[in-house]
């Protein structure tokens, strides 16, 4: 990690003396992540001082951020992979919705045990991602259009299964959903734990495996990656497969969280996932960003929601406006950073 951040600054030192501290900070790739983390802290402290008497300081409120946004975290991790590789996946929300529908239908109407249903759902999601990646790579159609078709397809398949929502009253599902793991300070749900495991796995894959380096290389410059002899097709297809898998897993977590399948679940969730990735400091052009930033992005979005809940008088649409304003701020920060780097 340190080598990648050091290398851009070394030629600076040779040519024009030591750059000022501020300039070095601005050219640091980790800056957006730090800014997001600082923003999260500031928002949390502001919330703490304002709603102290309403139990905002309770550690469970903090842990609830993970419980309530675990599925979003998993989906955003998948989106991080795709965006780092320079692509985009619009099918996230639809795959989540489809997974809730499929699992609810298999568990409730077909009567399969949950242990069989989980692998099926994950497999279907991953296969959908694989197909999209295959088409994107082999037929050179823009990811935007292919995943848009995926968005329509999976949302349509939801409606093919059933037009109405299916409530799940399977005992295995409800017991799994209600299981809480005590951490001393408070409890975490299974969904939140799974999300954290996914985050750790993504961190390992991106920073400590060859596959991870390839994703950064392809996102940085596809042409050079190809000339270097990196397996372009395999990596790209794997990235989309992974995104499909993450979306399906997010769908399972969402199903656990909400205990029903509905054809309209998670409409527009891909926007939340992409927003979380951008707020987390990943460049949408690909090649630069950290999965830890995505965690902070998700936490910031979650914190906005819970602050609006604590405030009580604000309506839900303020979430959207706040997300938009934050997106705007972070995009401008990214812009300033990238222009500095070129200069």
């Amino acid at each position, binding site marked *: 990690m340190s080598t990648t951040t050091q290398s851009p600054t070394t030629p600076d030192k040779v040519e024009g003396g030591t750059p000022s501290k501020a300039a070095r900070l601005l050219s640091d790739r980790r800056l957006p992540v730090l800014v997001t983390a600082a923003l999260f802290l500031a928002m949390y402290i502001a919330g703490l001082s304002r709603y102290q008497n309403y139990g905002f300081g309770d550690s469970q409120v903090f842990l609830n951020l993970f419980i309530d946004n675990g599925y979003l975290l998993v989906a955003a991790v998948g989106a991080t992979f795709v965006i780092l590789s320079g692509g985009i996946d619009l099918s996230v929300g639809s795959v989540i919705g489809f997974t809730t529908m499929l699992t609810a239908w298999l568990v409730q109407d077909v009567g399969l045990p949950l242990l069989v249903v989980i692998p099926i759902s994950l497999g279907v999601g991953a296969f959908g991602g694989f197909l999209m990646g295959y088409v994107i790579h082999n037929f050179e159609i823009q990811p935007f259009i292919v995943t848009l078709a995926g968005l329509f*397809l999976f949302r349509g398949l939801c409606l093919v299964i059933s037009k109405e929502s299916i409530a799940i009253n399977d005992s295995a599902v409800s017991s799994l959903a209600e299981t809480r793991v005590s951490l001393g300070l408070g409890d975490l749900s299974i969904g939140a734990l799974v999300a954290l495991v996914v985050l750790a796995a993504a961190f390992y894959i991106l920073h400590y495996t060859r596959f991870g380096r390839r994703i950064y290389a392809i996102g940085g410059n596809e042409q050079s990656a190809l000339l270097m002899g990196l397996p372009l097709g395999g990596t790209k297809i794997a990235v989309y497969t992974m995104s499909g898998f993450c979306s399906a897993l997010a769908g399972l977590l969402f199903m656990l969280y909400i205990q029903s399948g509905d054809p309209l679940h998670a409409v527009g969730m891909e926007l939340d996932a992409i927003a979380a990735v951008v707020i987390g400091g990943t460049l949408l052009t690909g090649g630069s960003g950290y999965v830890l930033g995505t965690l902070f992005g998700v936490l910031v979005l979650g914190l906005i929601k819970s602050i609006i809940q604590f405030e009580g008088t604000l309506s839900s649409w303020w979430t959207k406006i706040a997300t938009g304003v934050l997106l*705007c701020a972070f995009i401008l920060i990214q812009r300033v950073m990238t222009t500095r780097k070129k200069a």
Partner: protein
Amino acid sequence: MTTTTRWRALTRHNLFWPVAVLVALLLVNIPFTPDFFAIHMTDGHLYGSLVSIVLFGSPLILVAVGMTLVIATGGIDLSVGAVVAITGALTCSYISDQKDQDALAGVLLAMGLGLLAAVVCGLWNGFLVARMGIQPIIATLIIMVAGRGVAQLITDGQIITINSEPYKLIGGGYWLTLPFSIFVVAAVVAVTVALTRRTALGLLVESVGGNAEASRLVGIRSMRIKIMVYVFCALCAGIAGLMISSNTSAADGNNAGLWIELDAILAVVIGGTSLLGGRFSIGGTVVGALVIQTLTTTIYTIGVPTQTNLVFKAAVVIVVCLLQSPKFRAKVFGARAKTTAPATPAAAPAEPAPKMEVS
């Protein structure tokens, strides 16, 4: 020989595939509804499937025409759906506050306000893309996310219903026996085509899309062209927003124009405009938007369960995109072309030229 070359020239024409798809879709209807093409007169208005396809497709055509120019500059505008919602919300909330909702002046002022809001959104997008140099897909994502919140803020989270005769005209009224919105669409399309194909504007837009930096060095004010294009796109979305809210006489901040940006981009792609920019076809876009609307109508009329609507749409998107992908055509139809190639060696020298055009 001449028939094959003529056939080849026809299939190479950029409007061939979109029109072929449209005609095929229209013909599919005949076995199910024999009088599909019939148009009859009731109460002085023309009715028929073809009329209703154009009527319900008109907001989409408008948005897609604006989107075409944005895509021609190498950009994309995701915020049109939110702009549709904002315009409708602002206009309807202004009209609903009036004492006399039928007063023409009030309605015109409300529409002006709504369109002004749309233009402001377009200016903001254009500023971010052209001035700040932010990727269009992200720059317009801001309004896509925040815009719906703003629209709900304006309507207070309610669905505002209005009862205004003059306002009803633009989206649901009739004029000269035809739906009024058809005239609006025709006017916008005619003005756009005239501006882009009769003046140098279209060439400038294409050159900015081809290479923004090079065109700036040649002396084209690419920044100004880009801002203009985003404002135009938002304005088109604004008019579409007026139409949608007038057709239902209500403004719904949450659902008005939902997913219209995706449909519009789809229409542009079906129409043969490359998402990479540098080339566009307004005619293709109009045909593309009609294809999407016809598809929806067809699904209803042939009795396919409505819930499979989206699956059908996905299938059409995939097929159209695959047909347009040069690599896919080379893989599937290329094998057949290779086997016939030795039989006609005379055609071989002609091959490299079109290939250059493709790349």
